[in-house]
């Protein structure tokens, strides 16, 4: 491998690990920007040592250890400054024992770090646009440039949006602590809403636009699957992932060769994606198994599943085959394409 390939491989590993890395660091340092900086420092360290030593067996753990070391340095430096400043000002030095022990803080690991970071990114104090941007940045690991292209705004605008979101969090007094169970349910709803918003942003893209937009659908599904792993008992998470997968299964059939939309009934069902349909149908079943009272995502997924099942046999026998639709009534809008 030449040097270019090695740096690209290292950066890929870092991008794969970055969300968990930042999530762990946010818990320790309680500051998103600082956590991102420390994760970046770990990348710099990897770029320096991996070309010589090779990529370690557990690159995630290596990066975390390296970032922790940077965090400890940072805390020590701050503690030193805190001691020095009063001396300079001829005031009483602060009691050193009152400062938190950085190493103890860093070692108190939590498996819920990534979930908590999702909750932080979807904080109710933030606008939906800011929530989406921050989620894609922190959980999706997308660069500011990629997020900007996906939302059809300039990189400077998106950078501003992210900076402002971080400031809003700081002003809202976000402590980056795991929310209690009552708050958790509300936050989870907000996370699901943001993921679906990101998905729809990508789904509305038409041909010829930047490839980053359809990429949003993939990213939303991927983050949904990660979330489903973390809270497997939440029926609506399975419902949302299934809904996204079933809708995405129609991606190839939604447009004609000239880019004009093709309505659901007229779509070439042979072009629907069978892998996604299979996953989506399994997800609908899973959502049903987790709760007897389906939420809105689970219900919408069940409707999408009826269309998908119709595609697997022939024709559109929606009303006859889908008892699930009965409790919904007639006002519910159906997917048009």
């Amino acid at each position, binding site marked *: 491998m030449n040097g270019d390939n090695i740096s*690209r*491989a290292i950066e*890929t*590993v870092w*991008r*794969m690990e970055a969300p968990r890395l930042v999530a762990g660091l946010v818990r320790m340092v309680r500051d998103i920007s600082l956590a991102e900086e420390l994760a970046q420092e770990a990348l710099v360290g990897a770029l320096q040592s991996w070309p010589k030593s090779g*990529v370690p067996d557990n690159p995630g753990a290596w990066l975390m250890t390296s970032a922790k070391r940077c965090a400890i340095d940072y805390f020590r430096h701050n503690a030193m400054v805190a001691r020095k400043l009063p001396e300079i000002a001829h005031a009483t030095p602060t009691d050193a024992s009152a400062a938190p022990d950085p190493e103890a803080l860093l070692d108190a690991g939590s498996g819920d770090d990534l979930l908590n970071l999702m909750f932080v990114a979807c904080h109710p104090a933030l606008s939906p646009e800011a929530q989406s941007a921050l989620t894609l940045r922190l959980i999706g*690991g997308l660069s500011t440039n990629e997020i900007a292209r996906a939302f059809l705004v300039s990189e400077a605008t998106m950078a501003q949006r992210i900076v402002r979101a971080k400031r809003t969090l700081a002003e809202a007094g976000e402590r980056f602590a795991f929310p209690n169970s009552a708050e958790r349910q509300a936050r989870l709803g907000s996370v699901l809403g943001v993921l679906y918003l990101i998905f729809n942003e990508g789904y509305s893209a038409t*041909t010829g636009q930047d*490839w980053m937009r*359809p*990429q949003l659908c*993939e*990213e939303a*599904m*991927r*983050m*949904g*699957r*990660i979330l489903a*792993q973390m809270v497997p008992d939440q029926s609506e998470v399975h419902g949302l992932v299934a809904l996204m997968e079933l809708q995405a299964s129609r*991606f*190839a059939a939604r*447009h*004609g*060769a*000239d*880019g004009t939309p093709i309505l659901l009934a*007229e*779509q*070439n*069902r*042979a*072009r629907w994606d069978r*892998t*996604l349909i*299979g*996953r989506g149908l399994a997800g609908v079943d899973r959502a049903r198994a987790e709760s007897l009272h389906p939420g809105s995502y689970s219900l919408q997924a069940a409707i999408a599943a009826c269309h998908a099942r119709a595609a697997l*046999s*022939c*024709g559109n026998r929606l009303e006859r085959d889908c008892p699930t639709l009965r409790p919904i009534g007639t006002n519910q809008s159906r997917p048009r394409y």
Partner: protein
Amino acid sequence: MRFMIIVKANADSEAGVMPSSEAIARMGVFNEKMIEAGVMLAGDGLHPSSRGARIKSENGKVVVTDGPFSETKELIAGFWMIQTKSYEEALEWCKRIPFDAGMEVELRKAFEASDFVSDSITEEHLAKEQEFRDAQKPISNG
């Protein structure tokens, strides 16, 4: 983007030798990691080619040849479908596979919807195909 990781067959897989319980456990951990990262879409192991067949059309006639097939290196023993951000990420997952002695995989990119948005399929052709499909009787198991 989506990739298929194709697991090549070898003498053991073709002989129907099941992997050791340690190997299965290691593979389980690897699959779990891919599921946690949200990248794994599907994956399966395949029985030896002795339980399969090859089907082709010769002069308009369908010809079935029962397995096994001898050219082991060209056969496959399993696959994963994964979804990643980049080719590099897919490659990185391949590097993390808990390889058994003699195990080899091949990484291939799957066509995406956008690959098909071309002039090669005309509206007329699509309409015709749809008409044809709609005229088919539903396939029923009963």
